[in-house]
């Protein structure tokens, strides 16, 4: 039997506000435990929350970016449960009236088409702290770090519209692209800035009823998410095909061991007793606020992509990749504008530059090669000063801080030989020095002659110490050889 996978995602996005959602504590990542937790974050008696307006604005911006309805009046509620890293004994979140209503996110599919994933809603809430069970604490004791407690989050809840782990990853990546492009999240997955809960079920192909789903919580990389979904799909299919039934449960996936297992049922069997938080007023969003935020919204990845295909004549594929990340896109545009050669700019940004950045664990915002430097290099390629092969050498030198392209070309004497008189001279010398190759060329079928030219090219490049302009040499060589036929 063939099976269809059904996936829905809940995505927690930490908002890049300076301070917490209900207090003035800093949200900076990586501080020593409990140094960024004030009386409010510690839920000291008598303390009260005050809503961070920036967090609300960020949530609204997300809503606008996915074409969602923004609720004029949204309400914070208390979600009650006991846990040491939840200081108040309840999480302040939204349930009945979330700030962002239904919207949609368009994802690219492998076959080049696109698919719209529906967003059920997105709501504002506070993050919990962290429980610490190992490290710098005595054995048998657990610690609590409340630095993260109160960090603003939006939780984005999708409809079960994805049908494969590829689609789920594409959706997650698109969300990442949107929230970083509009600047509401730093997108640092390794620091927990985006975390995914995946709801997975399977059903016989063609069936319209949903199967029983499981939820795998707290995945913090695209890779782990893909692995966890694949593992869960296989597990569910095996289970059903062996005559079993899927249990609705919450699971945890360990990315190191590649094992997933259910959480203890005690940990999830909760009645959260939601009710409106009496310490906070409903959030009222005025038309004026909406208009202001709408006009302040930066260009979205999809709009940028279509602009790139029109303005720079990039392929859909190239445009998608370059437009999805704001820093990448800005870098590319800067190079393209300076060189007036978008095709070459795109190739270099997506090719050598990205490869090198990935290899050395850097990203575009701290790239050792600036956009001006890359543009300088591309200009010398475009005007035939250097060959593509030389360009790689020059690029490496720029990367290592030896200066900009012109300086390096000068210093290393890498200029391409384009003077036709000198080139003709070298070509003639090589032809005269290799009569056997000439004979071979002349006697070959026309179809094989092109290949035979390679031998001459090699010798010519060697004679010119690699500096001969290959296109020019090719043309001169062809003319001279053909004269001999």
């Amino acid at each position, binding site marked *: 039997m063939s099976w269809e996978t059904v996936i829905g995602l809940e995505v927690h996005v930490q908002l890049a506000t300076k301070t917490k959602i209900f207090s003035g504590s800093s949200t900076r990542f990586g501080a020593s435990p409990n140094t960024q937790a004030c009386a409010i974050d510690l839920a000291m*008696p008598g*303390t*009260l*929350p005050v809503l961070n307006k920036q967090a609300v604005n960020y949530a609204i911006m997300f809503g606008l970016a996915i074409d969602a309805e923004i609720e004029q009046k949204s309400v914070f509620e208390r979600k009650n449960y006991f846990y*040491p890293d939840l*200081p*108040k*004994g309840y999480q302040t979140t939204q349930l009945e009236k979330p700030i962002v209503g239904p919207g949609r996110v368009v994802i690219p599919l492998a076959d080049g088409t696109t698919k719209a994933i529906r967003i059920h809603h997105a709501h504002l809430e506070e993050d919990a702290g962290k429980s610490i069970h190992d490290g710098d604490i005595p054995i048998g004791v657990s610690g609590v770090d409340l630095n993260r407690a109160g960090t603003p989050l939006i939780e984005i809840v999708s409809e079960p519209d994805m049908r494969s782990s590829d689609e789920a990853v594409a959706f997650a990546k698109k969300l990442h692209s949107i929230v970083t492009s509009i600047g509401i999240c730093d997108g640092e997955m390794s620091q927990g800035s985006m975390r995914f809960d995946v709801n997975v079920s399977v059903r016989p192909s063609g069936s319209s009823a949903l199967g029983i789903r499981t939820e795998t919580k707290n995945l913090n990389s695209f890779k782990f998410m893909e692995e966890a979904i694949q593992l869960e799909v296989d597990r569910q299919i095996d289970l059903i095909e062996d005559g079993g039934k899927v249990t609705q449960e919450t699971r945890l996936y360990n990315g190191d061991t590649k094992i997933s297992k259910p959480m203890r049922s005690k940990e999830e069997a909760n009645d959260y007793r*939601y009710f409106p938080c009496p310490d906070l007023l409903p959030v009222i969003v005025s038309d004026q606020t909406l208009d202001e935020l709408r006009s302040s919204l930066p260009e979205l990845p999809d709009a940028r992509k279509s602009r790139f295909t029109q303005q720079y004549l990039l392929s859909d594929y190239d445009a998608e990749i370059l437009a999805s990340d704001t820093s990448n896109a800005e870098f590319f545009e800067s190079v393209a504008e300076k060189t007036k050669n978008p095709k070459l700019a795109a190739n270099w940004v997506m090719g050598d530059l990205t490869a090198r950045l990935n290899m050395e664990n850097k990203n575009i915002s701290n790239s050792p090669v600036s956009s001006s430097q890359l543009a300088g290099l591309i200009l010398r390629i475009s005007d035939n000063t250097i060959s593509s092969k030389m360009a790689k050498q020059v690029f490496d030198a720029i990367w290592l801080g030896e200066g900009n392209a012109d300086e390096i070309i000068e210093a290393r004497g890498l200029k391409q030989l384009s003077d036709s008189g000198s080139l003709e001279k070298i070509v003639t010398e090589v032809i005269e020095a290799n009569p056997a190759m000439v004979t071979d060329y002349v006697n070959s079928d026309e179809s094989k002659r092109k290949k035979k030219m390679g031998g001459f090219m090699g010798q010519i490049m060697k004679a010119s110490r690699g500096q001969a302009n290959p296109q020019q040499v090719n043309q001169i060589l062809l003319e001279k050889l053909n004269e001999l036929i």
Partner: protein
Amino acid sequence: MHNFTLAELINGLRSNKFSSVELTQHFLNRIKELNGDYNAIITTTASQALESAISADQRLANGNAPEMCGIPILHKDIFCTNGVRTSCGSKMLDNFIPPYNATVVENFENDGAVMLGKTNMDEFAMGSSNETSFYGPVHNPWALDCVPGGSSGGSAAAISARLAPGATATDTGGSIRQPAALCGISGLKPTYGRVSRWGMIAFASSLDQAGPMARTAEDCAILLNAMASFDEKDSTSVNEPIPNYRSKLDNPINGLKIGIPREYFSEGLHSGTEQAVRNSLVELQNLGAKLIDIKLPSSHLSVPAYYVIAPAEASANLSRFDGVKYGYRCKEPKDLEDLYRRSRSEGFGEEVQRRIMIGTYCLSAGYYDAYYGKAQQVRKLIQQDFSDAFKSVDLIMGPTCPSPAFKFGAKGNDPVAMYLEDIYTIATNLAGLPGMSIPCGQVDGKPVGLQIIGNYFNEERILNVAHQFQQSTDWHNHMPSELA
């Protein structure tokens, strides 16, 4: 000195009849001597008080000091006081020393008022008799075998026994007005949002409101001037202009339209209490007021609605007391669940646990709509009742509570009888309206309170009418026979 009203003490300080240090020492001596009889005060802050008094005297000497400068007061032990244990009447917080001041405390401190100490209260403000305090019951100065009312019983008894000229208190369902009535003093619960809740330990956040207690309406006005502020740290604080609450005290009240809700004079009301209240209404008529019969048809729903909403909010508000971060922690917990279970079972008293259970139940899946949802609808009906009534009257009056102070243990085994103590006060909390209780008579030598309810932010009018009543009567000057 302790027989002077707060207003008189302000004048005395300015005319150098006595210094703040002398005044403070006098009240500290009185507390030392008499608090044992009443148990009205949990913590006395003598040395801190004298230090504040010294600075207050300097400030007074420099001139231009705020009215409250140098005046000794008490704070209910629900207000966080920087560096001073704040127990909320509970074993849970017996060891809790806040590193911050409540805004109310801060406001008084900024004005140079002198804190004498912290007053006893029902545990987490849950009670109407002050019998639920971890620190033992407060005795009513009018009859030591009777309760002072609650939850602000300590503040009320302390004023009544002249241990301080003024005190702060809080009112969630009547916790200022009912003990004020039972102890024969004046107490005002302002409009919800008038006084900041920052640093005031929450019982039921949508109902809690801090207010003043003193012997006279004028003194309450002085205290409210200092207490009231718009506070950005409290999102429910309302940014409404704050008048000088003393400025209109002397306005005549002729033409005043007083609504008399028939529902407040029905079954369950003690005949002596009713008589005293009706007499005082006649007095007001003599001052030129008109009495108008009104209906508050949803009144009978206020107690049931309150006992859903208040415990529901409390069940969440009190979740933070879990033995993890501060407050009571049980000895040698086996595991996390044991830590929670025993810290909370051992740290909270019976009434608090009862209300946590009620609140938790009301919010549970399957019960939410029937209880919490319904109670919120009732709350709207009650608000509507009042807003309809205030279309035709200026103020609403009736008894503060059904009967005078009762004996210890009289309602201890019957929570519902205890809850009915607040039958006339609860509706104003549900509506968020201001309400006041002033002494208006006596039954068997025990005081009776007249309740005055105003429209939103109409504290000025309430205080004006209360003051005019007190100008023509002397119930507020009566004092417990033991003290006379």
